[in-house]
């Protein structure tokens, strides 16, 4: 799917209403994207309130400059990219995340080593599921992010490249490598 097609999928009527200052449109656009943004954001910091603050700022900023926004917005893509930038900037300022070139992709699951030991030799789906989880845990932050954007947000490689500020080829390579690593576990 090309970027143009993804843009075409957005609701122009809603977007126009938003730009003209409709509160209902504001609420609806926020509602459409909130869960997705939160799911994405929470991967960078476990602080729910911090992520909610960032999302609020994001939408309020969007509202403040609604009149100068373009005719069409690939809203989801724009929001994901902006949120990523914001979390990084705010996070560094507030010391919520480490001062790094890239935001942290935090993991919220700890799998006990001994559990893994117990699972060796088991060939049930449950055991495979655990192993997969373990493997997901071991993926690099970028790999986890790319998997999230690909499978959860179903973005095109082109859009992912834009969001993560890397080349399209790098996205394709990263996805391919990640799926290969995961399938070795099943």
């Amino acid at each position, binding site marked *: 799917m090309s970027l143009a097609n993804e843009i075409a999928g957005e609701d122009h*009527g*809603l977007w*126009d*209403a*938003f730009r*003209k*200052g*409709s*509160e*209902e*449109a*504001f*609420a*609806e656009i*926020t*509602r459409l994207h*909130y*869960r997705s943004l*939160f*799911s994405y954001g*929470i*991967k960078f910091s*476990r602080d*729910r309130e911090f992520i*909610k603050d960032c*999302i*609020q700022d994001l*939408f*309020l900023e969007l*509202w*403040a400059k609604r009149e100068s926004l373009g005719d069409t917005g690939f809203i989801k893509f724009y929001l994901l990219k902006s949120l990523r930038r914001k979390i990084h900037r705010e996070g560094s300022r507030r010391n919520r995340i480490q001062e790094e070139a890239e935001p942290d992709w935090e993991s*919220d*699951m700890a*799998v*006990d080593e001994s*559990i893994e030991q*117990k*699972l060796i030799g088991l060939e049930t*789906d*449950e055991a*495979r*599921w*655990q192993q*997969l*989880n373990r493997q*997901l845990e071991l993926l690099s932050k970028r790999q986890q992010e790319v*998997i*999230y954007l*690909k*499978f*959860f947000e*179903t973005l095109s490689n082109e859009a992912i490249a834009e969001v993560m500020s890397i080349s399209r080829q790098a996205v394709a390579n990263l*996805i*391919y490598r990640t*799926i*290969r690593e*995961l*399938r070795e576990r*099943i």
Partner: protein
Amino acid sequence: MDKYRGYVVEDFVLDADFQSWVRHPAAEKDRRWENYKAGNPEQAEDIRRARLLLESVYARFEAHISDEEIEEEISEMVMKIRQTQQEAIRPEPVYPGVKPFFRWLAAASVITVAALLGWLFFRKPAAETEQTLSAGIREETTTRQNRTGANETILLDDGTTVVLAPDSELRIPAMSGGGKREVYLTGEAFFKVKRDVNRPFLVYSEKLITRVLGTSFTIRSIKNAAEEVVEVKEGKVSVFKKEDFGSVGTNRESHGLLVTSNQKVTLEIRDNRLVKTLSDAPEVVPGKSGFIRSGYVNTPVSQVLKDLREAYQVDIVFDEELLSGCPLTAVLTNQSLKEKLEIICEAIEAKYEILDGQVMIYGKSCSE
């Protein structure tokens, strides 16, 4: 489905239709894929693996945030927008297909007060009762009626936000000067109550009074219902029958019922009885989803039950000594609370019962 011939795991996981089947299962999709598998047995293993891979990815990356939590954020943002442009004349909504701002009220309310039986008929006597209870409604009382098709947001003097649904009415006595915080509701509203321990916030509905210190919740009052319900999603409120409320000062806890997360209280109008039960569909309390681990492997059931207790903030009563010897291996992230309890009980051959808003687990020792 011809394009799938020759597909391997990598191709399946990247296919939009395949992803949609795993993520949003439906009978029709199941049939289509089962047929395909039957016709192409050599690919069955790849399909199975691809499915497993996606399932684990979806389970892992799912963020737990409730609809109410999102709606709360949205109403907060809308309030902020309004504050920045208070003088500006609001343009008419121009987007016709927009859904009701508070459609979530129907979904899972934080607190639901349902009822107001015969509201029109009893309106006058009810108002008199309220007058005596609240030391009189002074002249400064404002009445907000929402006769529009959309929700209306009201900011009270004490900082509490109320969003009034269509066809609803809220009467607000003046709150300035450290007076009482009370409002009278007919219909539906969402409340985000500003915390003030010294001044409890009271909501009067037809036959019930709900007392809050500070939390966010929703009240829905429906006319002509046979019962009045207060349902708590998060936090803690006290619910009183109006006739009992007067005696609160003398014997504080005798007549009110404390309702906490995932509990509801029903006033059955016919026999005027308050009954406390578990909510119909208890949900993980916002911010508590971390208590449920992504997978349990040989974990003592007592520990699993404790995790559920924290996540749902619901009392789960069991014999700890008895059940600590029962190991459980299960993934408990995606089911309802009742399904989770069924899975657990099946695994350890126990039974559960919901009694007075608590969950009772009856099991036997597993160590014999």
